[in-house]
């Protein structure tokens, strides 16, 4: 039932793994201090920033999760990489990134700390560390259990540790430079393998038109598979949630406030490279749904034929027969097993190895990116900031580098130990989005007000963030509050509005921040004040 890998497949995977390992370790020689480790010495060109943003953002969870969502809900699942990417990345490139880059910060919480105060910085950093830990666990377990076990039958526990050790070693050694350099290789592997799967899938189902006709003829639950914005009565992706919750709040919050995304732009060599990298990332991300979502649609047509030709092609317990207008059709019980099943049944030797390498590339790049960003946040915003608040001296460059590496190792060990707990979670993409939605709205509210509204102050931001997260949590805990089964889109939308109002009201009721403190950190002072602009440029040149 499982794939017996051909020696060519094994060779491809081995060459890929060793290649990443060697490239990652090679960058170690450029690491002398914390600036090199955390921000690659501010030397990244725009193409490296763009490539790295895409592959760090797109993990194996997307390959598996988005294809699974498309299998169940149709092309509307692609909204997360279309409506949920490009406009938000444009907004991030021209509103947030210039301010983060010019202020010379290592992290987003550090920016919030300068704009507001240490409490906001610590709270935001703690939230991100928690979310990154959960994301790491999900990435590891998904690939190990849903992908490798389904395809190869390997025990997921062994797989988790092998991936953790390989990725952990080069991130531990080379920091952001290693992450970005390996990301460039991983992007090529990922795109070649993804496009191969797409081409073969379309070939097997007789092309786009044939596939579309076959799915539309099934009627019923499949009749909206080619409608990208679904009615508001839809149980998973109603259009109002997608447009307002995803497009306006979640996507912008993710692209502007997520350290794992913005981290690369902070390491760019110029402000133009940072912005261009963000735009390139958005453009490259546009192809992701084509690679990862369309195979999910093809599976609806391909798997019934495969099962008809060979009843043992898919174990009987993995699917159920669903009545459609064109007759009973086998539909997989677990959406996250669609891609691995397609790969197992469809790909010839050589391509199986390439595809597996592509999925490992997606996973490893996301793990290394998350590890690098989490260690930067931990050292900059929690450990170092905490030391200063307690009256100790700030960490020197060498100590910061040591702590960054130590936390990288700790995080990957903790993630690997906790990974089996996530065996209970089905629909992992929605789960991660739900976790993110719990604080993305409030974070975006204080970030946006911090840059655009000089009157926003520390008390407003702290109250907005705290009450906003609490409000999110309350909405999440109440069952059936919104029409969607996974209400993360609505939670993000309403929590953003709630935190916005709270921050504005509390800021107006409390004293404003001193003008000299916020100079160069808000839009108006940078765009309209030449003195602030000159001070920022001097800081960058220094």
């Amino acid at each position, binding site marked *: 039932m499982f794939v017996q890998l051909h020696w060519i497949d094994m060779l491809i995977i081995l060459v890929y793994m060793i290649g990443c390992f060697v490239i990652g370790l090679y960058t170690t020689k450029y690491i002398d201090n914390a600036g090199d480790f955390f921000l690659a010495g501010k030397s990244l060109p725009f193409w490296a920033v763009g490539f790295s943003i895409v592959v760090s953002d797109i993990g194996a969870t997307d390959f598996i999760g988005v294809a699974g969502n498309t299998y169940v809900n149709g092309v509307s699942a692609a909204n997360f990489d279309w409506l949920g990417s490009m406009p938000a990345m444009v907004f991030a490139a021209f509103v947030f990134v210039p301010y983060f880059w010019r202020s010379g910060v290592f992290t987003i919480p550090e920016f919030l700390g300068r704009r507001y105060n240490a409490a906001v910085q610590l709270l935001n950093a703690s939230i991100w560390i928690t979310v990154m830990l959960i994301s790491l666990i999900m990435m590891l377990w998904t690939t190990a259990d849903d992908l490798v076990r389904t395809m190869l039958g390997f025990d997921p526990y062994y797989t988790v540790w092998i991936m953790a050790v390989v990725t952990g070693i080069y991130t531990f050694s080379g920091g952001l430079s290693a992450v970005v350099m390996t990301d460039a290789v991983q992007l090529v592997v990922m795109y070649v393998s993804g496009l191969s799967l797409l081409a073969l899938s379309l070939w097997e189902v007789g092309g786009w038109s044939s596939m579309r006709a076959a799915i539309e003829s099934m009627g019923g639950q499949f009749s909206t598979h080619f409608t990208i914005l679904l009615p508001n009565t839809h149980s998973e992706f109603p259009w109002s949630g997608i447009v307002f919750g995803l497009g306006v709040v979640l996507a912008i919050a993710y692209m502007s406030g997520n350290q794992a995304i913005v981290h690369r732009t902070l390491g760019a060599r110029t402000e*133009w490279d940072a912005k261009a990298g963000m735009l390139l990332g958005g453009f490259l991300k546009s192809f992701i749904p084509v690679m990862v979502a369309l195979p999910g649609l093809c599976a609806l047509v391909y798997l019934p034929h495969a099962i008809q030709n060979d009843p043992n092609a898919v174990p009987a317990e993995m699917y159920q027969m669903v009545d459609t207008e064109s007759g009973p059709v086998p539909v997989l019980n677990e959406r996250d097993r669609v891609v691995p099943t397609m790969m197992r049944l469809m790909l010839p030797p050589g391509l199986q190895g390439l595809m597996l390498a592509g999925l490992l590339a997606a996973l490893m790049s996301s793990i290394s990116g998350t590890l690098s960003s989490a260690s930067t946040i931990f050292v900059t915003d929690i450990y170092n900031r905490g030391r200063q608040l307690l009256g100790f001296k700030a960490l020197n460059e060498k100590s910061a580098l040591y702590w960054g590496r130590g936390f990288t190792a700790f995080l990957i060990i903790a993630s690997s130990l906790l990974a089996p707990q996530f065996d209970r979670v089905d629909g992992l993409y929605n789960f991660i989005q739900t976790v993110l939605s719990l604080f993305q709205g409030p974070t975006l509210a204080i970030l946006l007000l911090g840059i655009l509204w000089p009157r926003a102050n520390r008390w407003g931001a702290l109250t907005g963030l705290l009450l906003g997260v609490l409000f999110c949590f309350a909405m999440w805990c109440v069952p059936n509050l919104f029409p969607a089964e996974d209400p993360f889109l609505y939670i993000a939308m309403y929590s953003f509005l709630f935190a916005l109002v709270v921050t504005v009201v509390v800021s107006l009721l409390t004293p404003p921040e001193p003008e000299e403190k916020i100079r160069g950190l808000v839009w108006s002072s940078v765009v309209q004040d030449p003195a602030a602009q000159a001070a920022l440029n001097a800081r960058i040149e220094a």
Partner: protein
Amino acid sequence: MKRYAWYPLLLLAVTGASSAFSQENVPAHYGHERVGGILGALLRISDVILNEWLAFLDWFGGLWAPVLAPIFAPLNRLLASVYQPWATVITLAYFLGAMAWVAFILKPSYVNNGRQHAAWYTDLRLWTALSMLPHLFVYVYFR
């Protein structure tokens, strides 16, 4: 310093290898009860924590339901009544608005601040518009 910096890595490798190879005949679907030693104890503790957490979530949801349900029920009805084709119109306007904002409203000097070679192909206003055009096609095609 470099010598000591490798210690956590060594710990990672040893812990990973020993944890993975300490199991015997692990079933295809992982089961915590089959794991012994320190790792097994940690997993069982995390099981207890998870169960208590889930119970807390139920209690917390019950506490807030009477307050939040009356607020969101009318908002849900309002959104459900919006005419469906407005979704495509709003989305297309969102894309076009973002393009127009960068191309016509932001100052060119701000958009391209920091570029080393001033040429038409390094103008980010152009690349913003070109990057967004395919999305307009997608949202019209799948409407």
